């Protein structure tokens, strides 16, 4: 866990008081909506179709049980008893009243939670691997660096009014669970030949109307130089980034228009001037942050405790364990993913009761810690393997043990037209129908890893471009249609998917996905050739044929 210091707490409380005053002035007519809009957006408050929406940051996806209980409280007291976990390690509440928002913010502030960096043209919530600090083989805990960046960017005057929003993601594992290649700046921790920690720096990734996969501009930036290098990038962006056209304002467009070499050169020149200045991180500062991340006092435990051997006879338990339990860096422990994708449910939603129960389970089995991943699932990062059977029973009762992690029904979906004022089409009912179609676990595991991502419009909040199967809602003459892409992926081999053909109507989407999956099963050369690998080998043509031959 990370322990916030006095300064953080003072800052968060100041923000609550400030916002309370702003809301009061808005409700008394002293502030117009035009004046107020900027202020509410700086506090994570959007206006949606039915109500205000409130987005709260969960920096690098780490939550304490106390914090999760407080999120449950906000859901229950100020909202309709649930929240939506997003692809950027935030949680959204969909029904908050403006008049009550200051109280909700104040309740969250008591546990160190806030809504800074969740909206507006600034640097957004720095995201990371939800397995940070516990994944085997990790270079080091990427949250130390995420936290350094968070502190440095929060309310940084130069980065609070950027041409457009700006997103960082950091990973320290060979397998990228943080989707760093679709962020404005992606950082991959690794060590140089001297054994020093540093970063491969990637820039210009992003989805939305004009998607790009990030490219590497420097293969090693020493940890000491992280902030000065990042500042050099942001300065180049601030200087050249287009403020005249919202569609061209993201850094990915600048990188594309200047070209990666020219961009890298500009950054290098800027950096050479700044290098060694006050932004250089000395070991003392790094150690100071490192010391505030505390790890549990792990026990010495066997990998195969009796409890686990006994439970292995229960087919249901085994199915879940094989699907949702991952290796931990410490022997005898495991990382457990909690699927927020029950069959027929809206992806990423958790009720207040579930949140409270998860907090209790975290206290009992995971040293009071919970993680939030970009796939809209939660995780308990420090579970003793001997506790897995008991934990599974408890999760199953709560509807949180659907054994579909990374399978076809583990769908990422944005709120779409059911909630979002920018949407063209609905996302959630499409996801729900797909989870019903693929509810049979045997079939789902036969299919293997397959990520379906759904967005209700081109803003791509549901990451459709990088879904193995991507579904994008569009509108045609007032009807909901969906464009389908295949072959995208968001990991270390990130790629954008390719369109398979004309958009299909709402009622046909699930059939089309079934056709694509059937085609894959027929075309794959081995059972362990993943869907994306088959698409890579064969291209979209055979899938296109299969889908459109009968349509």
């Amino acid at each position, binding site marked *: 866990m990370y322990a916030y210091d006095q300064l953080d707490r003072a800052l968060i409380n100041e923000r609550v008081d400030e916002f309370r005053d702003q809301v009061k002035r808005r*409700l008394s007519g002293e502030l117009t909506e035009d004046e107020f809009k900027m202020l509410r957006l700086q506090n994570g408050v959007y*206006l949606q*179709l039915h*109500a205000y929406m409130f987005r709260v940051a969960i920096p690098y996806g780490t939550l304490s049980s106390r914090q999760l209980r407080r999120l449950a409280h906000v859901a229950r007291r100020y909202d*309709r*008893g649930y929240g939506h976990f997003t692809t950027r390690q935030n949680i959204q509440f969909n029904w908050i009243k403006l008049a009550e928002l200051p109280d909700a913010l104040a309740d969250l502030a008591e546990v160190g939670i806030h809504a800074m960096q969740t909206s507006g043209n600034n640097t957004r919530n720095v995201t990371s691997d939800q397995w940070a600090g516990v994944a085997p083989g990790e270079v080091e805990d990427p949250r130390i660096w995420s936290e350094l960046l968070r502190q440095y960017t929060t309310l940084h005057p130069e980065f609070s009014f950027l041409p457009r929003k700006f997103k960082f993601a950091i990973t320290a594992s060979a397998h990228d669970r943080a989707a760093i290649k679709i962020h404005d700046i992606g950082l991959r921790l690794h060590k140089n030949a001297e054994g020093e920690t540093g970063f491969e720096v990637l820039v210009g990734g992003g989805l939305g109307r004009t998607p790009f996969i990030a490219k590497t501009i420097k293969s090693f930036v020493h940890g000491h130089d992280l902030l000065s290098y990042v500042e050099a990038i942001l300065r180049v962006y601030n200087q050249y980034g287009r403020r005249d056209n919202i569609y061209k304002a993201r850094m990915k467009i600048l990188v594309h228009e200047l070209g990666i070499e020219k961009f890298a050169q500009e950054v290098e020149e800027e950096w050479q001037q700044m290098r060694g200045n006050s932004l250089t991180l000395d070991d003392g500062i790094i150690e100071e942050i490192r010391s505030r991340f505390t790890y549990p006092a792990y026990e010495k435990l066997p990998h195969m405790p009796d409890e686990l051997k006994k439970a292995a006879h229960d087919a249901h338990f085994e199915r879940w364990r094989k699907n949702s339990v991952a290796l931990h860096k410490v022997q005898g422990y495991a990382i457990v993913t909690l699927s927020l994708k029950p069959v027929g449910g809206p992806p990423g939603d958790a009720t207040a009761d579930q949140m409270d129960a998860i907090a209790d389970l975290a206290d009992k089995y995971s040293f009071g810690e919970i993680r939030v991943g970009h796939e809209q699932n939660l995780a308990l990062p420090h579970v003793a393997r001997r506790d897995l059977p008991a934990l599974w029973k408890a999760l199953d009762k709560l509807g949180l043990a659907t054994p579909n992690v990374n399978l076809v029904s583990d769908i990422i979906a944005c709120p779409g037209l*059911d909630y979002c004022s920018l949407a063209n089409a609905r996302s959630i009912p499409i996801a*729900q129908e797909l989870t019903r179609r693929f509810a049979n676990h045997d079939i789902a595991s036969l299919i293997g890893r397959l990520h379906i991502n759904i967005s209700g419009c081109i803003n791509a909040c549901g990451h459709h471009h990088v879904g193995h199967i991507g579904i994008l809602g569009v509108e045609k003459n007032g009807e909901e249609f969906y464009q389908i892409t295949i072959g995208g992926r968001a990991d270390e081999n990130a790629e954008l998917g390719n369109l398979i053909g004309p958009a299909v109507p709402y009622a046909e989407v699930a059939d089309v996905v079934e056709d694509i999956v059937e085609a894959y099963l027929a075309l794959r050369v081995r059972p362990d050739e993943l869907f994306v690998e088959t698409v890579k080998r064969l291209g979209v043509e055979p899938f296109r044929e299969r889908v459109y031959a009968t349509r």
Partner: protein
Amino acid sequence: MTSPLEQKKIRIAGPSVVTANRTWDGLVIYRTARGEWSATLSEAAIVRTSEEARALLAESVADDLGAVGAYIAPVEIKESGRIKPGNLREHIRFRGVTIELPVPA
């Protein structure tokens, strides 16, 4: 907010209403003929010409304290006289989400 310039350009293709979200809680509301707001679509003032639409919108936008983001939305008027939202988006705003909420109301 719709600027006066944009308002001039407004053309409607059929019967329409002005809708917005109530400022203090975000509730979906409709402008009534009495210059107030109502959460009930059947109480909305119906406009049938672009001129009427522009006038109703201008009046609605002027109530910056009461409502946020006023705009003109199409409606369908049934033979019975019942007013229905004119598209799926407005249907969802009026009727609510098309899915079961995680916690039943």
